[in-house]
């Protein structure tokens, strides 16, 4: 496979994952803004920060008005991480690697782009927002379904999955990072409504609020939420889960190519490190420090993959 093709697949799926995650973030922010009248601006600010767009946003707008943030994160093409920008970029990458995709996957990505172009042609009014966010997630699900249902399980698939999980791990880590103070035991008024709302928001941003309840965690505590998001092996958006997936896709590449690179070693070290941890030791280390370190290592892993598999000249 061409290095460029591997890179195109990787970025195509990073972008698709990002679109979906941004939609979830907006949804969680929207919900909290609906249920709590005070301090909306700081909620929207943290949404923008989590999406990595607070800096660019502040250059364009005063304050953090909900309509502005939503527009910036959904539609603004000046924002390279807006849903519209990343869906366009995913589709451009899909065109680039079209010969590596099945017709079903290509059509799903192209449909996604055409649907979003229509849906996001005008600013989204609040009453329409839930429908729009729903469509974004549905469209992503269609692409993912086409990928799972029709693609050979070869290196093409592995690079697609690597993009997905590197992005997902980064995203979950950012959510924790921005909200880490609400997860610290020291500041917790355990069981207070404020904490509950915050934790629920976090869980909603990774579509895990119901899963959390199914797991019979009656006690919603800072530490149980943090444990769930970081160390749970069943939650498809936890840090450990994403990392394990990345690692296993890298191992598959290593088997297929008969060649081991630094990225494999780095990934398995990260998995080993994380499996040995428990949540208490993470809190001892400092949640913020831990998360910052994770984001750094995950980014470094992404760069190693780019180099090991010659994405760029």
């Amino acid at each position, binding site marked *: 496979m061409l290095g*460029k093709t591997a890179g195109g697949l990787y970025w195509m799926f990073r972008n698709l994952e990002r679109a979906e995650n941004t939609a979830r973030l907006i949804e969680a922010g929207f919900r909290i803004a609906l249920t709590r009248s005070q301090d909306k601006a700081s909620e929207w600010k943290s949404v923008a920060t989590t999406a990595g767009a607070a800096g660019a946003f502040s250059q364009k707008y005063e304050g953090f008005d909900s309509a502005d943030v939503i527009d910036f994160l959904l539609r603004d093409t000046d924002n390279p991480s807006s849903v519209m920008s990343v869906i366009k970029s995913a589709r451009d990458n899909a*065109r680039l690697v079209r*010969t590596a995709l099945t*017709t079903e996957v290509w*059509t799903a990505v192209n449909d996604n782009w055409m649907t979003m172009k229509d849906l996001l042609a005008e600013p989204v009014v609040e009453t329409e927002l839930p429908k729009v966010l729903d469509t974004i997630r549905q469209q992503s699900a269609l692409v993912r379904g086409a990928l799972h249902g029709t693609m050979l399980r070869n290196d093409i698939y592995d690079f697609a999955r690597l993009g997905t999980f590197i992005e997902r791990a980064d995203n979950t880590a950012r959510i924790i990072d921005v909200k880490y103070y609400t997860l610290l035991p020291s500041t917790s008024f355990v069981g207070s409504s404020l904490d509950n709302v915050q934790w629920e928001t976090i869980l909603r941003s990774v579509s895990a609020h119901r899963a959390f309840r199914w797991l019979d965690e009656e006690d919603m505590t800072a530490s149980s939420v943090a444990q769930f998001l970081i160390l749970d092996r069943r939650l498809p958006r936890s840090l450990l889960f994403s990392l394990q997936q990345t690692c296993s896709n890298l191992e598959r590449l290593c088997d297929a190519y008969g060649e081991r690179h630094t990225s494999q070693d780095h990934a398995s070290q990260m998995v080993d490190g994380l499996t040995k941890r428990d949540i208490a030791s993470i809190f001892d280390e400092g949640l913020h420090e831990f998360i910052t370190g994770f984001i750094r290592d995950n980014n470094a892993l992404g760069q190693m993959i780019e180099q090991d598999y*010659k994405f760029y000249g």
Partner: protein
Amino acid sequence: MDDTEKHFDEMRGPADQVRPPYATYRTWFDQQDPERLRSKHEEAEAFFRRTGITFNVYGEDAAQERLIPFDLVPRIISGRQWQKLSKGIEQRVTAINAFLHDIYHRQEILRSGRMPRELIAQNDAFLPQMIGMAPPGNVYTHIVGTDIVRIGEDDFYVLEDNARTPSGVSYMLENRETMLQMFPELFARIKVQPVSDYPKNLRASLAACAPASCQGKPRVAVLTPGIYNSAYFEHSFLADQMGAQLVEGHDLRVVDGHIKMRTTRGYEQIDVLYRRVDDEYLDPLTFNPESTLGVPGIMDVYRAGNITIANAPGTGVADDKAIYSYMPELVEFYTGEKAILKNVDTWRCSEPDSLSYVLDNLADLVVKEVHGSGGYGMLVGPAASKQELEDFAAKLRARPSNYIAQPTLSLSTVPIFVEQGLAPRHVDLRPFALVSPKGINITPGGLTRVALKEGSLVVNSSQGGGTKDTWVLED
């Protein structure tokens, strides 16, 4: 006035009866519910958009992608007529390859005085770098798209020989695919010669032109300028259908005297490069130094006989509009036979007598730039306003050698499907010929382009043209 009355209509013929090739189709058409056809038409458009069969228009926003409108009425050619056409194309393509070999070697045609030396000496498409160089298999034009128009029952003219990187073949294939999906019952009633072998034939033909030094199965790649190129869809489509790699210049480099592509496992060799990048951008070390679309050093590899470039650099000298006017002589010179396909009368404005004739009759002529393509920079006299004629006359006087002129041909019409039913529109035809040392292969039919605007003669997709499926009957 019904402007189409004086034209040959391929369905109705001169006697206003349905011509035999269309008989079965017309019977079928008359039985169809127009409502169903309309919804089929919309289905087809949606299919093209979803599949991404689009092209980018230069000068517009990079994100701007357009569909080439597809008309669901096929253009039908009898097997007998096709045989004659395809013989004529084969002859012409053979002559073009012989001409290219000659012009880059002994230049017999210039020595014989049948073609003026200036035509070559002052031609930008003539590449001195190709002098004395023998391309693998001695093939220059691996793929040729010959633009043909029809005037009457047996009256076919070649309008242009596209010997560089002709495009449109993906539409030929997708149009047929779409027709098969929409109207399977038609193909049960009417025996149409298939076109679907084209990608397989293209691959085989390219592989047969691999360099002599190539060992094992030749590795073929398609070189594209990238996703914003107007024909990117076609590049990826052909690579996909052939099972070849789709590469850009930055994926390739010269390693140990060979062209290699950067893969996830290191550098791998390519033997045949089907390039869809113009000569000028092919090698920044040899041609345009600013080019980022090509591969630095590829011309050295080419000269050393370690890569096949298809089509060969420098083939543009054969499809120049000034050379075009010499095609009848050229065919005779190299094949020893009279040209089967006719040439359109052409006035070379570089010749003073011709220029004054052209200026006097501008309103009746079509004037084209010698090096232009895609219908840009041309004047269609009968359709031009007084002001446009005057402006163009000024351009002609300023640079006469930049132009040729031809009579306005009354191109044949084929009906398209409109609100009111069927309506005649002008068409042309671009069949595709593949050349290798094993022979010339021409896919039955080709791409029919149709001017969708009533009375219009401009079929180019960049200027409001559409396409039709082209059927050659098994008869």
